[in-house]
């Protein structure tokens, strides 16, 4: 076994190196060395089975790849699919790892979680390795191990994992297994997971067929997407990513499949994103509707309004995948963190916050659905009315805002989004039943918010709206201003705000900070916030500056990793991704930016790939 790299000898890969595999119920992150360093079971927010990404080698990993470190010559998703292909060169030959999770079970007797990985060689035999070391949960529990037939079975009470290989390989947890892959004789490895149900054995050859069928299904899904989209290839990848991050049993989009990837490497800005933010879900409604994916858009909104029912009319800042209260935030002792960024957290304390902007996003999503010719049913309309009533009552109160700051203030962005909530509710009321009294109350609130925010949220000396009442700082969230309608998109206020943010929050090139760095009461710094850059594209497209929008969008596409994936933030100096990854909000913002470019009137650009 000499020469075989053990997990603890591998240094942590840059976040940018990771690819996403998902079955729309849970997801894995795979490094460029073929190592799965993150997988939670049985769903996105479950216990980590492979947690090396933030837990170090003791948290387990599953690597399949070349025996010795080898350069990657190609890494890509197979076109319009969720199948990842990584090719290395080894001594003049090539070794390719093709892998995916099977998403569609179609009522067949299959494991709920099924991961298929196939190694194939070209140009000569290649030495490879399988390193399988599953550890469950916060304490990295080792499994009870036994063999059933040719399969390795690992058990932890109600959870069981089986590993099967063809041709047969004897794999032991924690011990690297060397093999030689010869051209024409691929090695297929199948990981099946059962939680509170019996394990289902799948022959590797049959599992491969399932992968191929799933791949065809994703291609058909992608084929339905509007062909007139600018930058269609990138947008399709973002849509696929968005769908892969949507938990199919409830249609809820998870913000990211990871916890505690740091916004500040070595620092404390490490949060658990394996939950659902209504804001992300609402932006996703717009994104899916804009490309003609009505089922997905409907599913998101229906789930959202159903999930928030228990706390209505309050809209929770975030929810679990099935609409429950997010667990209390706690730290995992002994987890070393990505690049020693501790603590590693599970749960999220932001669940208790009051975030006024959330109401605006959600009611706007409902309005977009109505505009597209889909009236709200009585239950949805009741929920929207409740949200608008709450905003009309509580808009002058301080809130944590979109950036979830610890000390509530009256954020200008939140106040504007409150205006949006009431305005869009009134527009929906044009075609839905509403009492005159309620209508008048909303109209009064809408006028009062507009007057107040124009007076107290705008700084004439900067010709820009600002971050909070009484503040002189800028806030990149205000880039949504041209979309709202509170001021005319061509007005000096809107143009001044867009220009001021672009100028003063610039992080270099197409990148923006979300607010002046470090001004959030937390220790450490952070990188440029990618969704803000896509909002700038959108703002430019909406204010008649389509050519600038297209140029900026092109630059931003260059900031994706080689697989077309984005994180939440990027280090302006190195281009490295920061924060949890891949990020639903960034991909949804990318899609919206592309839609804004598509819809912006212009004769001078033909921005097609």
């Amino acid at each position, binding site marked *: 076994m000499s020469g075989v790299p053990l997990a603890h000898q591998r240094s942590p890969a840059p976040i940018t190196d990771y690819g996403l595999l998902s*079955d*729309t*119920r849970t997801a894995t992150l795979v490094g460029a060395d073929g190592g799965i360093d993150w997988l939670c079971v*049985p*769903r996105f927010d479950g216990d980590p089975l492979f947690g090396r990404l933030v837990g170090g080698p003791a948290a387990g990993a599953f690597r399949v790849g070349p025996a010795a470190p080898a350069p990657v010559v190609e890494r890509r998703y197979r076109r319009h699919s969720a199948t990842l292909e990584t090719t290395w060169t080894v001594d003049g030959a090539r070794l390719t790892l093709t892998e995916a999770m099977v*998403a*569609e*079970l*179609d009522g067949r007797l299959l494991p*709920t979680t099924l991961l298929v990985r196939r190694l194939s060689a070209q140009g000569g035999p290649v030495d490879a390795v399988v390193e399988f070391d599953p550890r469950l949960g916060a304490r990295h529990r080792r499994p009870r191990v036994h063999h059933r037939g040719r399969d390795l079975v690992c058990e932890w009470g109600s959870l069981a994992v089986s590993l099967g290989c063809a041709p047969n390989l004897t794999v032991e947890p924690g011990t690297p297994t060397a093999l030689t892959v010869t051209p024409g004789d691929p090695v297929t490895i199948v990981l099946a997971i059962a939680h509170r149900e019996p394990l289902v054995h799948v022959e590797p050859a049959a599992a491969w067929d399932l992968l191929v069928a799933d791949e065809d*299904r*994703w291609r058909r*899904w992608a084929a339905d997407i509007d062909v007139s989209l600018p930058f269609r290839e990138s947008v399709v990848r973002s849509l696929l990513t968005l*769908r892969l991050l*949507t938990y*199919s*049993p*409830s*249609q809820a989009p998870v913000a990211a499949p990871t916890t505690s990837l740091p916004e500040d490497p070595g620092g404390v800005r490490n949060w658990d994103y394996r939950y659902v933010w209504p804001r992300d879900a609402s932006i996703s409604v717009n994104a899916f509707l804009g490309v003609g994916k009505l*089922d997905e858009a*409907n*599913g998101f909104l*229906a*789930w959202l309004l*159903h*999930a928030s*029912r*228990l*706390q*209505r009319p309050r809209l929770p800042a975030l929810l679990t995948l*099935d*609409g*429950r*209260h997010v667990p209390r935030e706690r730290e995992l002792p002994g987890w070393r963190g990505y690049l020693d960024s501790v603590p590693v957290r599970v749960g999220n304390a932001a669940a208790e916050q009051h975030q006024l902007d959330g109401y605006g996003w959600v009611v706007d999503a409902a309005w977009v659905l109505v505009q597209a010719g889909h009236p709200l*049913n*009585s*239950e949805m309309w009741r929920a929207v009315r409740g949200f608008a009533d709450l905003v009309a009552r509580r808009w002058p109160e301080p809130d944590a805002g979109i950036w979830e700051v610890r000390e509530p203030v009256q954020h200008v962005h939140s106040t504007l989004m409150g205006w949006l909530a009431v305005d869009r509710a009134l527009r929906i009321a044009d075609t839905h039943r509403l009492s005159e009294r309620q209508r008048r109350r909303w109209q009064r609130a809408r006028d009062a918010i507009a007057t107040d925010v124009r007076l107290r949220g705008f700084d004439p000396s900067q010709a820009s709206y600002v971050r909070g009442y009484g503040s002189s700082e800028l806030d990149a969230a205000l880039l949504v201003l041209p979309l709202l309608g509170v001021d005319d998109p061509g007005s000096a206020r809107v143009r001044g705000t867009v220009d001021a943010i672009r100028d003063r929050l610039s992080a270099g090139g197409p990148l923006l900070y979300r607010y002046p760095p470090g001004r959030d009461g937390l220790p450490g710094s952070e990188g440029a916030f990618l969704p803000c850059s896509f909002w700038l594209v959108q703002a430019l497209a909406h204010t008649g500056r389509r050519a600038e929008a297209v140029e900026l969008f092109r630059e931003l596409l260059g900031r994706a990793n080689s697989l077309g994936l984005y994180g939440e933030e990027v280090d302006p100096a190195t281009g490295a991704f920061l924060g949890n990854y891949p990020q639903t909000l960034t991909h949804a913002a990318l899609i919206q930016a592309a839609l804004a470019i598509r819809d912006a009137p212009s004769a001078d650009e033909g921005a097609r790939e």
Partner: protein
Amino acid sequence: MDWAGWALFGIVATAALTASMITAQMVGLTRLDLPLVLGTIVTEDPDRARVAGFFMHLAAGQGFALGYAAVFAVLHRATWWIGALLGALHVAIALTVLLPLLPGVHPRMASHRSGPASTAVLEPPGLFGLNYGVQTPAVTAVVHVIYGVVLGLLLQAR
């Protein structure tokens, strides 16, 4: 058996159960909406589903009342506490067997195995209906005990 009592009081008990459940739902104790869950078996429109589901639930309640009446007849006793015990048994079966099995037969309910092709819109209830709120098992238990108590008080043991 008390056929006349069954015909009348089965509806009364089911109406009491349904009203209690809707009240609990309205005050934010649970997201379990039984008329909606049942009605979406036959129609996608939530508003129509609630109407259809209400009548389906009445019919189901009437069916279960038959079992209660039969037990009372066998025991030669019909008291509120025997009704409550039967209600407890009834809800135990509903939460541990009927609700978890529902995704297998409901055309518009997702299951924990749903994939991207699923256009189902109702989320699966999960064990004890916990996906519809942590208080769902308690609420469901209380309303079924009410159902049993009503039948125990109103049905005759013959």
